[in-house]
């Protein structure tokens, strides 16, 4: 059990110009917390994890585990276990040997290793497979062995680098829930890397969003969704993505296709002096209204039926250009392709405004 902190930690790869894969990352993870690092590929999330693991150098700043500076400590001295994306099981060892390898190296007595391996195997439903080699296991079983290898060691921190990305969709959802439950039960501080924002939202106590090596925002999933700190986070968190359009504003509100969406006083004050803002609204905050009412004219280009809901993609004219919008509607009465519908803002409290250039959130 331990808390983890990154103190302005950077990883710089030499080159011309040098690449700052992780740039002055500062992050506090408390004891027992499940923190998810999420971001698109190349955002530095895996590098940040590998720095914590000791597999990657820390070029600037420091990393602390359990209050101890481990910046220059080799991996074996950090008391951490890692689950790799590829699982990285030892192909010549049985499942039991794979799981007990770390304990064996530490000189733990054989009987104790056996007991611990069996206990972890029971937890992961692997008891039947202990004597098998990894090649005789299915993908899901291999993934569980990789988890077991980490659990058996009882480390103070678990690191997981996209452990679910090699599983098929159904198994991934199942394993996702299992990992979250397991973490809850063990209460071990866990840092989990993923590019999948659904995984991030469902598993993490807190989620840290990275982009180009820079921390964008770190907060609870709810807060990330409700109050994204900038346009990038707004577009990255949530599926389908938030509609983000740069629109002109007047003293009354934002101008969208002739419709003026009224904005709160505070929002207007924050945007004071700007002609345009990045206007963000989630698909579920939009709705299709009867043709008589006020709304944006939208031509339906694609309807994705998800069962309970349907996602309607369409084009709206804003100024001179045609912009694509996504609207979430009731799954039983979706519009048809090519139909012209009226779209209006259903919930005015769900409007997000961002600075058109910096992307920073406007209003407090």
């Amino acid at each position: 059990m331990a808390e983890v902190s990154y103190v302005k930690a950077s990883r710089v790869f030499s080159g011309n110009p040098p690449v700052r894969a992780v740039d002055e990352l500062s992050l506090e993870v408390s004891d027992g917390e499940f923190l998810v690092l999420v971001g698109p590929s190349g955002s530095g999330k895996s590098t940040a994890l590998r720095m914590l693991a000791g597999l990657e150098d820390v070029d600037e700043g420091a990393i602390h585990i359990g209050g101890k500076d481990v910046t220059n400590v080799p991996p074996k001295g950090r008391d951490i276990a890692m689950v790799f994306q590829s699982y990285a099981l030892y192909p010549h060892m049985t499942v039991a040997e794979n799981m007990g390898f770390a304990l064996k190296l530490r000189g733990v007595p054989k009987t104790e290793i056996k007991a611990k391996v069996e206990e972890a195997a029971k937890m992961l439903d692997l008891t039947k497979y202990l004597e098998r080699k990894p090649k005789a296991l299915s993908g899901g079983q291999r993934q569980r062995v990789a988890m077991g290898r980490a659990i058996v060691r009882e480390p103070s921190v678990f690191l997981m680098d996209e452990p679910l990305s090699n599983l098929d969709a159904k198994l991934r959802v199942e394993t996702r829930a299992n990992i979250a439950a397991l973490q809850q039960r063990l209460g071990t501080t866990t840092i989990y890397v993923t590019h999948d924002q659904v995984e991030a939202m469902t598993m993490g106590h807190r989620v840290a969003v990275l982009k180009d090596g820079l921390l964008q925002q770190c907060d609870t999933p709810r807060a990330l969704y409700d109050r994204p700190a900038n346009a990038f986070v707004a577009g990255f968190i949530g599926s389908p993505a938030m509609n983000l359009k740069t629109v002109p504003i007047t003293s009354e509100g934002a101008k969208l296709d002739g419709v003026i969406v009224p904005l709160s006083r505070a929002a207007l004050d924050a945007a004071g002096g700007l002609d345009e803002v990045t206007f963000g609204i989630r698909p579920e905050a939009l709705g299709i209204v009867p043709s008589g009412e006020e709304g944006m004219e939208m031509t339906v280009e694609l309807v994705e039926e998800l069962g309970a809901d349907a996602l309607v993609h369409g084009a709206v004219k804003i100024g001179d250009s045609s912009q694509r919008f996504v609207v979430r509607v009731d799954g039983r009465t979706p519009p048809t392709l090519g139909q012209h519908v009226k779209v209006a803002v259903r919930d005015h409290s769900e409007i997000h405004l961002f600075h058109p250039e910096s992307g920073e959130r406007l209003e407090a």
Partner: protein
Amino acid sequence: MTLVAEEVRIDVPVSGAPRRGVVSRAVGRLGNGFVQVLLAVVAVFWLVPVFGLLIASLRDEAANTSSGWWTVFTKPAELTLDNYAELVANQAVWQSFLNTFYIAVPATALVVVMASLASYALSWIDFPGRETLTVVVVGLLVMPIQVALIPVAKLFGAFGLFGTITGVVLFHVAFGLPFAIFLLRNFFTGIPRDLIEAARMDGATEWVIFKRVVLPVAKPAIASLTIFQFLWVWNDLLVALVFADQDSAPITVALRAQLRQFGTNIDMLSTGAFLSMIVPLAVFLLFQKYFVQGVLAGSTK
């Protein structure tokens, strides 16, 4: 999905061959048959001389000079083990046979041990100048043995190694290492990085990673290298001819000394040649079981 299918295959063998057309099956079988015939022909071409050598080694000199070895089929009574008894009794030839072991075994073992250690460092330990060192070592592959004979002979002379088994072994080790490192490094770098890092996270030192993870996974490459190096040293004539003296000469040199310009001592030659051939064959058969495909299967993804 495919992984699930794999599991099914383990538990319940899928019954029934995949359905194929009559024509394609016929062509397949014909192609198969052709390949088998071809392989059989090649095997016979290789085996007949070996077999002839074996028979010749089992006939006395008079029989060998008066008729071909194939006449043995009509006169099997000619077969005798006298030649082998004579060879073992011949102190010089028997000693040279033993010398070959004294040369080939350490020259192989040293190369395998040193090359695997070096290859591990060159593939998985980060140190300044690693790339340059790799290029230099592997670049030594282009150095022909012949250009080194005289300088090394002088060097050995100065160190008192000339004419000793140690000298011959050292020369073989030096010239075996570039290829050995080239072969093993290529294999080692192909081991997934995750596997090495997983071991590092499990608390393994470099030595433990080498011994417990890399070596078991690299068995096929090490088996190939062992066979290569052993054959090359065992069959060497040139190096031994230059650096060995009467007492340290291996069997290749001793047999060459038995060659006469007129007349033959085929009984001695065929016996020695057959003996010197059977050992590498045994080594090959011993190590070939490690040539299994897919040692890394199941490790990653």
